[in-house]
């Protein structure tokens, strides 16, 4: 058969059964997801490679003690042997990658006898709970305020909303967190004689979550509101929105079907990274509210050169980012028919 120049049709090189699957939209979607998941493997490999290199390039070692007693050479040597740090760095790297493929993230240096997996499983649930709650707050509040401001452009509603967004975006969250503690915990306690106040620290699924969640969510809410407003304002001026009005559609339909369906596409794009940002924790929020989350654990691990812990946390964060982006890309297929799966 003659060879015809050009790209083979999609799936032409696959066996017949697979070719049938790629023909349907849901089949194409499944293959898209599988391919993206497979792509995560090289991504994670490079994340480990870069983190590993940087970690070992930085001067110092896990056994340096700041201000404390310096360990004797023999002890340091024994520790190195125990944790495999005596081997050449490339070998250590390969060994780590090999272990990771077996879901073994190694032992922590700081906490005797604890595996990195244990530590991550202990601290991440706190962070993830706050992150997910903050995320659930962002969607209605951030998107809602943005849409409201756009639909009432240049009115008081718009000015107040955008004023709030600017303030929320400009205050650092340790200031907001501290202010909330002062007002809602300390002053509220004094003013009500202890009848009403929000706990300033601690973690339980109750009102102690309110302040950390709000503190964490404030900046992304402001950001999402601004983005939603800008995108909605741009969409309102599109020709097809004018067409919708010209058809005599009621305002509700024009807004929902013709404005929002289009204007929220860019917003969804940013929600992926926002979600990843939220569930990977904020050291500041966790410190202000004394939450034993992964953000703090990560910083502590870096300070004490807890190599396996640093790597483990980085791998977890990369996975979260990759999965969040994958979810956004899949969502895209459903909200924008122009998106093609490639």
């Amino acid at each position, binding site marked *: 058969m003659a060879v015809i120049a050009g790209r083979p049709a999609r799936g032409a090189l696959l066996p017949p059964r697979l070719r049938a699957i790629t023909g349907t939209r849901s089949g194409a979607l499944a293959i898209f997801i599988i391919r993206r998941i497979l792509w995560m493997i090289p991504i994670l490999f490079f994340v480990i490679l870069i983190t590993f290199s940087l970690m070992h390039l930085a001067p110092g070692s896990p056994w340096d003690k700041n201000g404390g007693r310096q360990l004797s050479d023999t002890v340091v040597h024994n520790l190195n042997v125990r944790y495999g740090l005596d081997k050449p760095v490339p070998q250590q790297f390969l060994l780590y990658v090999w272990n990771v493929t077996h879901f073994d993230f190694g032992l922590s240096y700081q906490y005797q006898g604890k595996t990195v997996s244990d530590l991550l499983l202990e601290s991440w649930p706190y962070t993830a709970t706050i992150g997910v709650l903050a995320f659930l707050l962002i969607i209605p509040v951030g998107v809602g305020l943005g849409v409201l401001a756009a639909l009432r452009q240049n009115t008081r509603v718009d000015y107040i909303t955008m004023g709030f967004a600017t303030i929320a975006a400009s205050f650092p969250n340790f200031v907001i967190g501290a202010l909330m503690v002062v007002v809602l915990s300390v002053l509220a306690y004094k003013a009500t004689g202890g009848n009403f106040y929000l706990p300033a620290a601690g973690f339980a699924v109750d009102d102690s979550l309110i302040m950390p969640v709000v503190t964490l969510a404030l900046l992304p809410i402001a950001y999402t509101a601004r983005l939603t407003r800008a995108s909605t304002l741009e969409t309102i001026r599109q020709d*097809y929105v004018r*067409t*919708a009005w010209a*058809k005599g559609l009621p305002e509700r339909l024009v807004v929902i*079907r013709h404005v929002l*369906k289009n204007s929220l596409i860019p917003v969804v794009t940013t929600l992926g990274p926002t979600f990843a940002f939220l569930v990977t924790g904020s050291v500041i929020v966790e410190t202000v509210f004394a939450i034993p989350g992964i953000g703090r654990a990560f910083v502590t691990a870096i300070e004490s050169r807890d190599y396996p812990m640093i790597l483990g946390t980085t791998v977890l964060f990369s996975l979260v980012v990759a999965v969040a982006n994958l979810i956004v890309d899949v969502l895209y297929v459903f909200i924008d028919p122009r998106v093609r799966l490639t």
Partner: protein
Amino acid sequence: MGQTLLQLEDLHTQFFTSRGVVRAVDGISFHVDAGETLGVVGESGCGKTMTALSILRLVPDPGRITSGRILFRGRDVTKMTDEEIREFRGNDVAMIFQDPMTSLNPVTKVGTQIEEAMTAHERFTERLARGRVVELLKRVRVPAAESRVKDYPHQFSGGMRQRAMIAMGLSNEPSLLIADEPTTALDVTVQAQIIQLMKQLNRELGTAMMLITHNMALVASLCERVVVMYAGRIVEEGPVEQIFRSPQHPYTWSLLRSVPRVDEARKERLVSIKGLPPDLSHPPPGCKFHPRCPFVIDKCKTEPEPQLEEVGVNQVARCWRLMRTINEEELDAAKSSGLSKDAAARLKQEPSATVGAPPSGNNNAGS
């Protein structure tokens, strides 16, 4: 013909910008009869589209209808409540927009977009509307209409999208269809098909049509009557044949001369109208066309703009120098240059600044 469907009375639509008030529509009066096809012609920026958007009360910010009446079957559109105007749009008067590529919602199925035009009004139930979508697409000659209703706009070509727009416009069987440059964004072969289609629909359904265009050929093939607009004003109005045979306003004459003709001797040069339409926030005094008019005389600059005057059977024009009063010599001069000596000299002096600016007093210098 039939009774008056739409009557515009001294309509003013103005834009309140930081540079001043832009008089986009400046005292327009005309009417459309039931079943009639009316052409509204003029260059870009002369207020045609704003006139159409005013009729549906869709003038974008910061524009507003400032005075005048728009009577549709005797009801004043400018005084309708929000619900009344919603019911009026798409039902009594529908509009087809210029660019089919951007006028359809990219994330909603074409079928849904046509269907909702019907379900927004009370004429069709949801069930009936759904069935009618395919029927409408067939009527506007969309091939494989049954399967195409489920497609999204990006799966349609430009011509197909415009057909879908027309189907949408016709879905409620409106008494008047306003088509704003319906073929401008399409290539020539598709243009012809769309024109044929609109002609046929007008004949079969008796829908009155208001065709907004700068394309004189389109007007000739589709319209019975024509309104010529310049700088937010009507400068000439009359039956198409008459206007084409003997245009009386120099602007109409110039517009017609800027269309290439196959049946005419090639010796005559194709003439474009020099300069640009005036800035509507600072229109020139006197007749607004005088800075570009090949037959301009002093009276055009100093006297207030002339009234619309009867110049033939059902034909009116607004000009001191009607074409029938222009002598042979002057006509030849204008044909060969497209400009009077006077205007040519002035344009040479200040290439673009003169356009729309008031004339610089006396013009004898330099000639």
